[in-house]
């Protein structure tokens, strides 16, 4: 059970949060310009890596804010938490 440091509320139990999958996959601004493969890349393709993974989390049972988390999937250690719109840290 993680302890997640919500950037708006502080440390809270994992049960207050939901995970939103991989971060930094922006919705294409002009979907109609994309061919099927390009659209599928956005729609379906997600990484599943061992090591530092950037992912979205939502404080669903708290402030309801979305934010980004850099988590080491090999030991679940959260290396960094940063707000939506910010660039992923270099780790």
């Amino acid at each position: 059970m993680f302890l997640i440091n919500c950037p708006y509320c502080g440390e809270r139990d994992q049960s207050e949060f939901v995970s939103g999958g991989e971060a930094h996959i922006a919705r294409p601004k002009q979907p109609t310009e994309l061919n099927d493969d390009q659209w599928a890349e956005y729609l379906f393709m997600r990484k599943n890596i061992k090591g530092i993974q950037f992912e979205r989390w939502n404080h669903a049972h708290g402030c309801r804010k979305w934010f980004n988390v850099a988590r080491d999937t090999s030991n679940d250690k959260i290396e960094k938490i940063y707000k939506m719109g910010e660039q992923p840290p270099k780790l």
Partner: protein
Amino acid sequence: MSKNLRINNKQFVDETRKLSFIFNGKKLYGYKGDTLASALLSNDIHLVGRSFKYHRPRGIMTSGSEEPNAILQIGNDDALTDPNVRATEIELYDGLICNSQNCWPSVKFDIGGINNFLSPLLPAGFYYKTFMWPASFWEKYEYFIRKSAGLGKSPTKQDPDMYDHRYMHCDILIVGGGVSGLIAAKIASDDNKKVLLLEDKELLGGSLIYDDNDISKIDNQKSSEWLKKLIENIKNDKNIIIKTRTSLAAYHNYNFLLARQNLTDHLSVNDRNNKIRQRLYKIRAKKVIISTGAIERPQVFHNNDRPGIMLASAVKKYIDYYGVRCGLENVIFTNNDSAYETALSLHKSGTKLNAIIDIRDNSSSEIVNKVKSLGIQIYWNHTVVNTKGYKRINKITIMKLNDKGNDVVGKKIELNCDCLAISGGWTPMVHLFTQSGGKLKFDNKDNIFVPDKTNLNQLSIGSAKGDFELDDVLKNSIKDTKKFLQIENSNFDKIDVKCSKEKEKKNIWLLPSDKPLSKTKPFLDYQNDSTAKDIKLALREGFKSIEHVKRYTTTGMGTDQGKLANMHALGIVADTTNTNMGDLGTTTFRPPYTPLTFGTIVGRNVGQFFDIFRKTPMHEWHVENNAKFENVGQWKRAWYYPKDGETMHDAVQRESKAARESSGILDASTLGKIDIQGTDANEFLNRVYTNAWSKLQIGKCRYGLMLNEDGMVYDDGVTTKLGENHYLMTTTTGGAANVMSKLEDYLQTEWPELDVFLTSVTDHYATASVCGPNAKKIINKIFKDLDLSDESFPHMSFKEVKLGNINCRIMRISFTGELSYEINVEASYGKYIWEKCIEAGKEFNITPYGTETMHLLRAEKGFIIVGQDTDGTMTPVDLQMDWIISKKKYDFIGKRSLYRSDTIREDRKQLVGLLTDDPNEILEEGAQIVKDENKKPVDMLGHVTSSYFSPTLKKSIALAVLKEGKRLKGQKLLVPMIDKTIKVTVSDTIFLDKENERING
């Protein structure tokens, strides 16, 4: 029993409080302070069960949670009985009833015991090899195996006990209240830390508290006396919360731990009434100190499992703590100095010790010298090669070891004994450390795995980290705790510790016998009956990974998770394969450390508290009017209102007829409601719905369909424009929370530039929906000044009016196809407005209808229900709802996916209507649709999603998803059922009022 097994020991057992208990039908006595095991032993009972596979007689072996044999069924009540309880852990209470497990028909005469003689036929992997192939054999054997094996009986009735959960937070959590844990607690408290100290026994102090030798001294006091003062000090310490009878069950990441406290299991059954039985603590600790101690290892030799063979430390504890002798003719068999403490305890209590057998050549430590000086016979460099006695050990045979320690030499010596105290050294309890993700390293000196690397803020101290001698335990615990807590000085810095120091060490994982290995039974895992032979067999058959060897031989897979056996299994694998034990790694220990009962896990979340349920403001009215309810998400929704013993079918027919012919009323309060405000609210709606919203005027309503980004229908509902930049969106009942989250997600992460605010107002409003040809008259009776003319208040429009002081939002929208008004009021007026409608509608036979009738009415009109007629694989085109997809909008959620190669396939499953050839035949929802029954395999073309008998049309109607359905209108198809095949014809999805005329009453 005439044997005098009790010695005078008033310290921990209260001999003034005699308790009676029943073991296998026989009434026996013990004292307050006894465990069930010590009470049994004081009655000279060792034999308590049969082993799992060979049904060999087994006795109490330990004094703690590592007990593999003394696993009993407690209680004889169908609701309260508890299987797999370790006799060594349960405190004796008056009236305790217990029975042996694994015995059929009885512990003394056991049919399964024949397996013991068949054991050459029951090697490792026997179950896999024999019963899993061919698979059909398993069914035949299973009954007999289950009956003769068995691991206790589950209670068959509901658990009447109460369980509780509690959260706790602390600076320092200390697991284990032995001497090292107590010292750490004191150091932390002196540094002003909030300490939580857990101890699984009823008393603090661990094994040092009953230590009774004259060699160990702390600050020149007897070590146990010194410890008692420390405990008194800690009990009065405000910074330290102590939870006894509390065992740690699981150690999760981020220092989140679960601990179970026993609150009533030690009380007599009558004293337990209305008390919480167990409490589960959910602990979040800033730092964790593991001081769980070590457990003694047995030795592995031929016939090492007879009742009366016990761990040396257990024999010592039964004497020094419980005042119980485990035998009158004792022999000790050891490879280390610690068993000599048992020798001293036996001697001091006047209990006969016939001999000590030590596999070492000699030992010159202070404690061994003391035992030598007492004149006790010690056989150096000897091993036990066999034991005798079926239900209780009565003899052992010993022989001299050769130089290499891999064979025996010389002649056999027989010794009498009714209790053999064995010690193979000590294993640190690293289970919690590994559970938490910590990595172990191998210590070649003591042949143990000790904690190494961890990602968590934790520390292992005392024998849990591999310190076994008192001076090491104390000094290293003090030093390591100070470093862990970043403290310069402590009150223990000048501590003076004296103890015996072990100098000679020797370890043989599998002791040799005069017989070949194949003719012997050297047990490793007592509970699962696996022997050293099984390990060797697994290796011969090609298993290499220790995890595979474990599963194949089932070593370490019992309820004790092989706490005793794992090290020997590893050692034998290492020796056989010429590998370093450290390179083999260990098997994984998984939570819970000791078994938890389900009651503890679920706590209070049972019965009506299993899940929350939501009630509408009109709920009580529905209850009073005999409604049956259905669960929709967490909501309780009125399903139908049976009258005078009506069946659901009868009630639904009556309700729907009334709604079509005069008027009906539905509680629609559960629909999700989202208040949308902001200057970009209209643009936002354009992006989330498939249709266009730009031209919607204030006071008008519009139906919208929402897709997922993959183009599949996600939710639908009507949205009303309340004002410039202000909308009220409704969603499906079940989808409300998900829609809200999804919209928030887009707003926060994809479109942060939009000025839009979302507020969930589902619970803030109650909704009464009045429909039918007489709906207008009823509404007019309530809202006399409201102009209900079609010109002023047309279909799909909205008015805000007052009824007294109550603000009413009325939408003229329809999900039934009838003229229909939805009145929304603040939730607290919900029941009032509902009753107002009922009263006004009385003369028009206004009929409350539930969700079932609602489903029928909308199906007659071909309106979909998201989640019933769709399943996450249906596009709007599949639903024949092309009309709702805006051609003009550049983008909306899911638009691009609507022309992916897969979504434009013509042969997708599409929504159609189905009519049965026999109009009275009602299809089953979920039934498959086929064209040709005879062609095998049968092509499944689709399935029925909604099906009803329409009283208005006087025939059965259904909606279905069907491959290429759009093209198949008029086609005859088949719906095969278990007892018949139903003929159907594909139809339009709208069955009633295709021209939409009823909408105007």
